[in-house]
């Protein structure tokens, strides 16, 4: 596969969220605001790409028995960088995201890509794969946040776009709506994208 094929494969065809149903926790938790989703997505792209690169670089030196633990520690290293960066430069958002930044470590997407791709492929390919998978994840996050923020707050990236006449849907801010919207999202994608193939 060429690099652009790898990117498209991991971002769309094998998208972690809608195809493999991984990383659902944060997909549901941070998507009530667009800005939070965007920052979260960038954090995941960064840690996923560099964790993939590092794991791929050392893939031949890790003993099989401690493979998982080593991968987790490599991932944790990059997530700590993201966390400290957010705390220093974007303290307000860091506070809103709360534990979900740290939870990138146990996000199944990172472990999944490390196991499925980085442990078997060349460093640069793994890096591209990481960016692709992270991009696909961010796309889903933004799509869900778009609906939730407009209906729930009447705003977009914090700017009011629907005026005072808009009656805010309280349910969009709360937990259940996240489940419903993700379910509908997966439904639409399944019908459009994998028609007859699933």
């Amino acid at each position: 596969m060429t690099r652009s094929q790898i990117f498209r494969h991991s971002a769309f065809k094998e998208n972690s969220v809608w195809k493999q149903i991984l990383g659902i926790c944060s997909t549901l938790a941070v998507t009530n605001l667009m800005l939070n989703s965007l920052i979260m997505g960038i954090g995941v792209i960064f840690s996923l790409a560099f964790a993939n690169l590092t794991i791929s670089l050392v893939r031949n030196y890790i003993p099989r028995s401690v493979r998982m633990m080593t991968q987790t520690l490599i991932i944790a290293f990059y997530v700590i960088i993201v966390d400290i960066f957010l705390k220093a430069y974007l303290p307000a958002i860091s506070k809103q995201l709360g534990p979900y930044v740290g939870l990138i470590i146990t996000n199944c997407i990172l472990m999944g890509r490390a196991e499925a791709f980085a442990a078997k492929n060349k460093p640069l390919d793994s890096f591209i794969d990481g960016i692709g998978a992270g991009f696909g994840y961010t796309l889903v996050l933004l799509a869900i946040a778009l609906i939730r923020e407009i209906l729930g707050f009447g705003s977009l990236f914090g700017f009011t776009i629907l005026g005072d006449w808009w009656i805010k849907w309280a349910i969009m801010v709360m937990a259940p709506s996240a489940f419903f919207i993700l379910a509908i999202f997966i439904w639409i994608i399944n019908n459009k994208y994998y028609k007859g193939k699933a």
Partner: protein
Amino acid sequence: MDINAFILFWAAIFTSNILLTNFLGMCSYLSISREVESSFGLGMAVFFVLTVTAGLNWVIYYHILVPFDLIYLQFIVFIIVIAAFVQLLEMLIERFTPALYYTLGIFLPLITVNCAIFGVSLFLVIRKYSFIQSVAYGAGSGIGWLLAILMLAGIRNRLKEKMIPQGLQGAGISLIVTGIMALAFIGFSGIVIVQ
């Protein structure tokens, strides 16, 4: 945080259920909920590991990380503690109660990467719980998670014979069921308020 540990325990089960309001532990929740029996095994394992690691991580955080000014290492340390505890538990169960090992043991490796366990450890630091509160919160969250996965497994069993649109089968319908469960749990909010 000044909440009675007993109240916190109930709050963690109902009003701020770890899965239905904080969305933690979704991966294994969606994939292991086909059978009631295996869901119960996994749920029990989660409950036990959560209770113990919440206490362990509290002690390590306040008696090792804080005095030595190593708070930035909390993610790595928590993960290692959880992984080490799960490994230890697996060996102990296998050695002393083989029967239990066959029902519970297969789920233990899955627990290391269950975000509910790690999430509870992070929550108890962020919300500044005391030791007793942390253990109560861990135990309550574990039971809450067990409750949620048992309910989903039961409902999914009934759904097997129902006509579901093709695109919604599997994850889609599970998410909708979970959404309705979350709606029902909102009815409990107002009993106690934590956060």
